[in-house]
């Protein structure tokens, strides 16, 4: 690092100096990507704090146009329908806290089930020896390729015929037991676990269940947490399925409820300020979740068995 470059001139230090030039370049690239990532979010915030109807009057203003918290009030359901329409938006009766709760239940339940059951299957595909293993895995992987137009309608019918429309079980079921991505992801990580540890456990007489719970799961905190976060975020952002299956008040999730800020009519404009405020507000819980668990992803390197 740069601050170590002191006066001595022997070879290793010159080498460090060279690295520090590389580091500066690396930081520059990193900062460029940070700006690219963050700028649109600044733009969202600036839009969310603007008045929808005034936005067009100064489309390239870097500051909010006609500053107001109105959009956030609309999102949090604090504005009346008349106020909302007057500000160029819609979105009456947004029962924000209820929808937030629904989103947490939906995404939480899907994440718990999907990660656990997929981990079980991934263990069988990565660590157990049985005939036809790769073939069955290949078939499972095929699910990754099934186009959504094949699945949404039959699954909707199935949920309806099971009498689960507008219930959490109905919304959760299709992704509760597996997704091909989850299995694939964990299998690849399980493949990398050092066999020695498993072997020694097995020599100690531990059965597959114990091995799975006492060795594989604890050693895979990083990938499992990562998958958990990814699954949670994906489910949190789900729109079409919960719209189809859970559109009643008691099961409506945030993404669906905040859809009122999108354009209502075929050629109309969305309520830009409301839409951006809604997007930011809906992203906050997942962001908090990420920061809660991010440490886990990063700090649990030790599972390679080489601490």
């Amino acid at each position, binding site marked *: 690092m740069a601050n170590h470059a002191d006066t001595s001139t022997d070879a290793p230090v010159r080498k460090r100096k060279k690295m520090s030039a590389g580091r500066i370049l690396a930081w520059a690239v990193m900062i460029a990507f940070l700006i690219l990532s963050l700028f649109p979010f600044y733009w969202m915030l600036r839009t969310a704090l603007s*008045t929808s*109807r*005034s*936005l*067009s*009057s100064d*489309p390239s203003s870097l500051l909010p146009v*006609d500053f107001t918290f109105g959009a956030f009030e609309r999102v949090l359901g604090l504005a009346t*329908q008349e106020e909302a*329409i007057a500000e*160029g938006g*819609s*979105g*009456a009766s947004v029962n924000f806290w209820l929808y937030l709760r629904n989103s947490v239940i939906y995404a939480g339940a899907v994440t718990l089930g999907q990660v656990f059951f997929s981990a079980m299957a991934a263990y069988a595909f990565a660590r157990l020896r*049985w*005939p*036809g293993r790769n073939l069955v895995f290949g078939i499972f992987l095929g699910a990754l390729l099934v186009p959504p137009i094949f699945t949404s*309608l*039959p699954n*909707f*019918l*199935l949920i*309806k*015929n*099971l009498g689960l*429309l507008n219930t959490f079980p109905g919304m959760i079921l299709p992704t509760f037991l597996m997704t091909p991505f989850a299995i694939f992801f964990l299998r690849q990580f399980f493949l990398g676990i050092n066999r020695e540890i498993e072997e020694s456990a097995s020599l100690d007489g531990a059965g597959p269940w114990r091995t799975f719970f006492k060795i594989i799961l604890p050693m895979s905190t990083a990938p499992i947490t990562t998958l958990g976060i990814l699954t949670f975020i994906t489910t949190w952002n789900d729109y*079409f399925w919960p*719209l*189809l299956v859970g*559109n009643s008040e008691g099961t409506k999730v945030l993404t669906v409820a905040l*859809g*009122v800020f*999108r*354009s*209502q*009519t*075929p*050629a*109309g*404009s*969305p309520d830009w300020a409301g839409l951006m405020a809604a997007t930011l507000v809906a992203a906050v819980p997942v962001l908090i979740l990420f920061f809660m668990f991010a440490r886990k992803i990063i700090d649990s390197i030790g599972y390679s068995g080489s601490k």
Partner: protein
Amino acid sequence: MATFNFRKAGTALAAVTALSLTLTACGGESEPAATNGGDGEAVDTSAASGQIDYWLWDNNQKPAYEQCAADFQEETGVSVTITQYAWDDYWSGITNGFVAGTAPDVFTNHLSRYPEFVTQGQLMALDATLEADGVDVDGYQEGLADLWVGQDGLRYGLPKDFDTVAIFYNKALIEEAGVDEADLAALEWNPEDGGTYEEMIAHLTIDNNGVRGDEPGFDKTKVAVYGLGLDGGSGGGNGQTQWSMYSGTTGWTVTDKNPWGTKYNYDAAEFKDTISWMASLAEKGYMPTVEAVTGQSSGDIFGAGKYAMITNGSWMINQMFGYTGIETGLAPTPVGPSGERASMYNGLADSVWAGSDNKAAAVKWVEYLGSAACQDIVGEAGVVFPAIPSATEKAQAAFADRGIDVEPFLVHVNEGTTFLFPITDYASQINGIMQPAVDAVFTGQADVDSLDAANEQVNALFNG
């Protein structure tokens, strides 16, 4: 041992598969209940009771309809649950609902969709019930009720509102150009040189250096304000807000007859001339290119002061007049070769789903939605033009209270210069063919005569 287990697992898997197959199959292809009202048979609405679902897509109209529903419940005891979905989700929801048997009892229907719903047996014919209840379908603005009579001669919807097209203009830009607002109402158009209409458009166009489109030195590659805007694309096969108000004055009709034509006329010279003229406007820099506007919502561009004028539909009134810092005005579309103006005339209606399990209440609600009692409430809200003339007047008054003179939209109805939105079978497939075809002429990728081939493709749909 391994094989034994494997087979056992296979059997279990097969059992699960069979189970889910049957689960999916039963109720899958739900047949519309043809118990009553199937073939225009009457249902008895006098004993209507219980609860029904009603869907619409325009959230701005929801308060008015909630009022209607409250009044309706007081009158009949039937409770109506209103659900709103944005346009795209709306039609996916309707289709899925038809398949799964969960569609709403009553829903707002669109002309571009209903012929296919009729073919698929998803809509209930209303004739007999309306007749039994003594509902008069002649009380609507002329022609609207006829739009909803299918090829079988049966009625599948009761009109709720209608829309026409006019020019929205930016008052400041007009004034700056030294143009009198009254002049905008007196423009004439022809497909050869665009007439005084094109002169006006050219004059209203300004490049980045402040040079107007009709002045020497105009830089068509750097335009600051377009004389005429373009609404989100080429308009495909009907050009409702893009070019139908011009082609309608040339004597050209989209189909051989309307509704239920079986031959399209996209190979006619009048149509091709209109499209060529539109393409030439973009080429001259007086109007944005299709590339510049594809997918855009034109209102926001108008609101940014980039368009002096833009043709658009009456459903846009509140949005177009709502932009801060923009004073909006309305002018009627130009007079064309026929010596008259023209506007496409599109109407919405409420339809009853054939699979509804409470048809009595559903039809009763449609009747109420189509009555003056409810349409007056909708009119007073001042969002759209209701289909009943007295309610249309209420809407006009409500707009006037806000300082908006909507006469340029209604002039078409009053003077009889409307022509109907083309209603035929295969509407979505035809759009699939015509959207790229008209785009290609607009963008200059294809010659205007390429429309002949597209027209042949369209007409082939009707010949089996």
